[in-house]
């Protein structure tokens, strides 16, 4: 293993890691001072040249997104996406709790670049510790003139507000987030217009993830070369790949010996992550399936574990993408029918309900799997599941947002890669012992 110095996790876990004092003593807010001496266009260009791509799931180039704002916009908002609800994902929480100032600093730098005077952090309600850490950090920044009027004597004003969600996954989708912040049901909007043109309160808005904004701080601090010294250049075979640079917070959970959040250069393989960092699969077993980047991304088989976890890797073996780089490991004693049921039930529960294919499709897939798990499945249910999955999502063009693509992908991967689990279960007619099947309530 080459040695690698964590940057995003550098202070996390150390005494008083969340305090402004600790942060400043460690060089904190010098990146903001530097940025404030640059023009907004120069800051944007720096982030663009570093090749930073969004960490929230879609991997969109951050600097490029910032240039989509109308040049003559008078009011621009930054909506910080801290809804982190994709099953398997917890890296935003780790840095919000343990080192919130690197995020506030990134927010302030981004706001300078996009000429924004008000940022809202949309935080999922369940993150009480993150809420308190961020609240304290924001208060301390106001007291130290790092937020508020004329920050650091730059002539720039900036307000940052914390806004707590109310337990709905769909608030992580950027336009669902915007609707929710406006006080409405979190129904994602039809795009275009994209938020950069018409977003929060009908004004041009940039939505960025917590980890993305933390990366912005370190790019300004350490420079473009530092960021590009890690990761994977664009794949010449894929003209749409913009490369995967920088450090990444990989989450590992499920059947491993050492679940946790590991900071590594982009592009580590799933196998190295699991074996060299997460202590290997538990109980001396083998991995049967590995979710590469949050539930929505599908599954890697044991044979596919040498896939690099960069923006381009998982797609090459039929997964939806890198997503949030949250790895969930399923051991070889687990049946994929039960795993898939857990996934389908999640998306059915979290569908916002405004698109019929998504609302009905996710509910039907869950019901079919329930039937199979109750020993009443028929072999033709397998193709029925695939048919439903193939019909829902932005990719087939039947829905407004990507939740349904994320619901469909695990179904397609599970059936295409583990078909015998489904056939054997149906033929045996056995009943699952999963407790939640009996408890009901979804």
């Amino acid at each position: 293993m080459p040695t690698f110095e964590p940057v995003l996790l550098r202070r996390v876990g150390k005494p008083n890691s969340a305090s402004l004092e600790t942060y400043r003593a460690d060089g904190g807010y010098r990146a903001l001072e530097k940025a404030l001496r640059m023009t907004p266009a120069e800051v944007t260009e720096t982030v663009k040249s570093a090749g930073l791509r969004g960490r929230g799931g879609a991997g969109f180039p951050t600097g490029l997104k910032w240039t989509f704002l109308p040049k003559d916009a008078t009011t621009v908002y930054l909506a910080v996406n801290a809804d982190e609800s994709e099953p398997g994902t917890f890296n935003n929480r780790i840095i919000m709790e343990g080192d919130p100032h690197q995020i506030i600093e990134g927010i302030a730098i981004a706001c300078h670049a996009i000429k924004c005077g008000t940022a809202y952090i949309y935080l999922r309600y369940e993150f009480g510790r993150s809420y308190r850490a961020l609240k304290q950090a924001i208060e301390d920044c106001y007291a130290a003139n790092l937020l508020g009027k004329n920050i650091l004597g730059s002539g720039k004003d900036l307000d940052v507000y914390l806004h707590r969600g109310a337990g709905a996954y769909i608030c992580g989708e950027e336009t669902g987030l915007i609707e929710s912040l406006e006080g409405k049901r979190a129904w994602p909007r039809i795009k275009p217009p994209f938020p950069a043109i018409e977003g929060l309160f009908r004004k041009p808005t940039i939505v960025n993830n917590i980890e993305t904004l933390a990366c912005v701080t370190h790019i300004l601090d350490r420079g473009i070369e530092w960021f590009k010294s890690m990761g994977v250049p664009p794949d010449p075979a894929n003209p749409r790949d913009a490369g995967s640079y920088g450090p990444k917070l990989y989450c590992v959970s499920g059947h491993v010996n050492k679940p946790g959040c590991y900071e590594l250069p982009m592009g580590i393989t799933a196998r190295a992550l699991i074996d060299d960092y997460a202590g290997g699969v538990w109980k001396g077993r083998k991995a049967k399936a590995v979710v590469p980047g949050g539930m929505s991304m599908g599954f890697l088989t044991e044979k596919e574990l040498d896939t690099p976890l960069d923006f381009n890797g998982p797609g090459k073996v039929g997964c939806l993408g890198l997503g949030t780089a949250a790895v969930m490991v399923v051991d070889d004693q687990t049946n994929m029918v039960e795993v898939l049921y857990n996934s389908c039930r999640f998306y059915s529960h979290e569908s916002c309900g405004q698109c019929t294919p998504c609302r009905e499709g996710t509910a039907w897939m869950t019901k079919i799997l329930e039937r199979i798990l109750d020993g009443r499945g028929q072999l033709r249910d397998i193709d029925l599941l695939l048919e439903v999955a193939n019909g829902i999502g932005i990719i087939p063009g039947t829905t407004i947002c990507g939740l349904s693509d994320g619901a469909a992908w695990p179904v397609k991967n599970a059936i295409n890669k583990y078909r015998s689990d489904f056939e054997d279960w149906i033929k045996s007619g056995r009943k699952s012992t999963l407790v939640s099947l009996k408890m009901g309530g979804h």
Partner: protein
Amino acid sequence: MSFLSEDLRQKIIAELPKYPTKRAVTLPALHHVQDVLRCVPLEAIKEIAEILELHPAEVHDTMSFYGFFRDPEHKLGKNRLQVCRSLSCMLRGGEEVLAELCQKYHLQPGDTTPDGKFTLEFAECLGACEGAPCMLVNDECYLSLTTETASEVIEKLGS
């Protein structure tokens, strides 16, 4: 006489300067009310609507979208416990923890104890999968639980 206490009204009003529209205060207002009353009664909806210059139906529409808020028939207990049922927790015994807690306290997911001490629910991924199985107690997450350690957390709750 208003239904909401003066303290609650002031808390809601204090949110207004943060946003360019009054409607954006809907979720913060609902949170303030449910924190104290453990549910959101119709009278509260009407008064929130009045403060925010909305129709009560608009506030109700938002409230009902988020399964988080409860009406008076399903009032929360003093503490809200949510056991995660998503994949990483399921793989490490989360379902069993929830089932055993239900059995021990004679509850179904969603129910509140007769003494009103706590409500027990399931949750989807709590964003703490490194500590699966986990349980949220109000807004603090307890990690790497067994039925025993979860019961200890419950016994220590204030009633």
